[in-house]
């Protein structure tokens, strides 16, 4: 094959660089970083950079959890509700005098039960994930508010030093960042090097083929939602530690869409089977830089949402130029 022929087929030379959505988003993130560093006073201050990292850590952890589900062609819209209610229960149990270990185990167990119930609804009852988790998120919130916690805002007890320590720092590095790194590393290893990780990719890629190949698709689906719920509980504990409160109204906020934004922006296609933890990290970094910059600029919440949406659109448009959907990819059902 001559070089010129190859050129002719793909148009300009730049697509040959092997740009993917992941690298594009990474470059956009660097560009934002550079622009903010030059134009925004105080952006490069080490305090600000640390708080930037700290603030995106929770989003990143949730993004990893969502990523695991989305790669398997699912979606977990109940993730934020699970996070809020399981953590709120743990904290209010502690307030009521339950010892920390039991409180944490109960909260974790609650999250795990939610995950298993969602997995069963999706895998065995065969309800589409988007409806099952949307309905579950309302059920979780309602059930939690009725039966588990009395208040919308729950304060972390004064004597819970271990909980405060979770969001401390080690030699200058905020611990939430380390937790994010740890979760990302474990998820990376799970997806990349284990048999079950491959099953998740296979199910997202072609569910029917995965079934026929003999992959236990139903238990695997339950496992995905179990993992995402349990990770969400962890993210909730870190949030509680950072803010010293749990505000269960977050369950009804748009936070879950921020999580989806991180995942999609990083390049994990909603059609499943694509991407990995690296994509989540890249998406998280961009959103983190963007949110931090906009906060320093003191933009309104509405304007911030508009910017986030626009960024997602740009990423998708650039991706469609760089990875054109020609007839051959279209035949394979590429979305």
């Amino acid at each position, binding site marked *: 094959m001559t070089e010129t022929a190859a050129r*002719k087929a793909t148009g300009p030379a730049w697509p040959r660089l092997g740009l993917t959505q992941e690298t594009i988003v990474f470059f956009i993130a660097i560009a934002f970083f550079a622009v903010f560093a030059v134009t925004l006073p105080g952006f490069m201050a080490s305090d600000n950079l640390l708080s930037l990292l700290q603030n995106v850590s929770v989003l990143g952890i949730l993004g990893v959890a969502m990523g695991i589900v989305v790669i398997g062609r699912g979606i977990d819209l109940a993730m934020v509700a699970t996070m809020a209610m399981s953590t709120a229960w743990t904290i209010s149990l502690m307030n009521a005098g339950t010892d920390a270990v039991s409180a944490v185990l109960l909260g974790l167990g609650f999250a795990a039960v939610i995950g298993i119930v969602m997995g069963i609804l999706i895998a065995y009852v065969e309800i589409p994930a988007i409806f099952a988790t949307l309905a579950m998120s309302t059920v979780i919130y309602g059930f939690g508010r009725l039966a588990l916690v009395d208040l919308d805002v729950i304060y972390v007890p004064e004597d819970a030093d271990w909980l405060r320590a979770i969001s401390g720092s080690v030699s200058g590095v905020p611990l939430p960042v380390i937790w994010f790194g740890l979760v990302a590393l474990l998820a990376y290893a799970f997806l990349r*090097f284990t048999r079950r990780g491959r099953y998740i990719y296979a199910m997202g890629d072609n569910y029917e083929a995965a079934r026929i190949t003999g992959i*236990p698709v139903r238990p695997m689906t339950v496992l995905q939602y179990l993992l995402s719920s349990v990770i969400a509980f962890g993210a909730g504990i870190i949030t509680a530690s950072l803010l010293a409160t749990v505000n269960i109204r977050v369950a009804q906020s748009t936070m879950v869409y921020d999580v989806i934004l991180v995942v999609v922006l990083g390049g994990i296609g909603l059609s499943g089977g694509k991407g990995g933890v690296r994509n989540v990290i890249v998406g998280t970094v961009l959103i983190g830089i963007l949110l931090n910059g906009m906060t320093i600029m003191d933009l309104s919440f509405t304007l911030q949402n508009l910017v986030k949406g626009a960024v997602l659109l740009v990423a998708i448009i650039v991706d469609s130029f760089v990875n054109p959907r020609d007839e051959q990819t279209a035949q394979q059902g590429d979305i």
Partner: protein
Amino acid sequence: MSAPLIEMQNVSKDYRGVFAVRNVDFNLHAGEIHALLGENGAGKSTLTKMIAGVTQRSEGEILLDGKSINFATPAEALDNGIAMVFQETSLVPSMTVAQNLYLGEEKLFNRLRGLYIAAQQFLSSLNFNVDPWANVSMLGAAQKQLVEIARAVRLNARVIIFDEPTATLTPEEKHYFFSLIERLRKRGVSIVFISHALEEALAISDRITILRDGELVASDTTDKFDRDSIIGHMVGRSLSDELFYHKHSEDGARKPGKKVLSVENLSMGSMVRNTSFSLYEGQVTGLFGLIGSGRTETAKIIAGVLKRNFFHGGELRYLGKSVRYRQPHKAVMDGIVYVTEDRKAEGFFDQMSIAENIYMGDIVTNPPPGGLTTAGAQQKITEEWSKLLQIRAINPNAKIVELSGGNQQKVVIAKSLTQKPKLVIFDEPTRGVDVGAIAEIHKVIQSLADSGIAVLVISSYLPEILVISDRILVSRLGRVVEEFSPSDATEEKIMYAAVH
């Protein structure tokens, strides 16, 4: 002969430097039936898609009535009288047959009754037995194909391109289809049809063009060709002896070993009706049946692929135990694998590499130590099976979608065979597979039986059934109705048992 209606001059199409079609000169005359033949991946579909505006050429000229054309969309081609009927159906599944036929021509207020009456009359004028009220999603593959053909005919196209029109049709429907295109030709319509069925091409076409590896290797009137010469052109070697026209009965059929599976009075809805048969170790059992005879459904019940709520009754005994699989997982773990007839929809993982696809089968039944996958194990198993099945890929880490149909099929087969099965069910193992790969897949099937595995091969291609089976079952209307030994089976006898 008059000037050609469509003239392609030196046309090429490449995908990022890989040529699907290269420097082809192809002529289509008014009122001729032109068969386009070639192995899978030879560029037949791409060539015709360029005429129909589905893809655009990279180089060369296409002339219609002497004027250069370059259609950007199929709709534009249609306006110029060129229609294409695709292999994969392009019907709207949630609409009725009549609605699909008149799609895009609805008035603001449709008279439904009129629509259905018109559709009914039109379909019967073509001799197509399709209910215009039926929802397309409820139709079988063959009936969908008929609707698709009817739609193209209705649009009064001057050129109709059929991509494998007969692959899913029953002999009766084929007969009507051929008489239909004969009538179309008399009306001056030019027909291009892509096919793997050489006998059909020889029987009905006026001219034959053969492509190999994207290049045109032969194009002439049909009387200049015979079966052997076509195969010779297609593969660049004479394969026909190796393929279908020998019977392996010199050394006799293999004797049955231990009974592996017995199916007793199995029923499921209207597709499988009270069918009974057995499969034995070390034997290839061929199962022949027309579309709608319940072959695939029976196989899918055995392998646990079809869901339990459709399961109506009967008993399956596998290795002496009564089994009732609700998910394929259990069946695969017990040694029953099903190699699908539709590799794209349920066979391979299209975002994965060849190696990852093959390894996926292995890790299901043979968990790696600690549940950890390794690149080394993946490479080893891929090398082993690529050699056994002669999978031709330059790089095992290339994506599977870059392979030709035959090689993709081999990867899907390899994925199942890594699972050390005791019973392998092949559903149309050579559908959409090029001639060279067919022989190799047949060899693999034979060697499985030689090594003592029970093999069931479902096929609607008679020469295939005759050449690979040690025992032939014929299925009709949901049940196995007859059994033949290969020495006394003939195409006529089998077909007689299969038609209803």
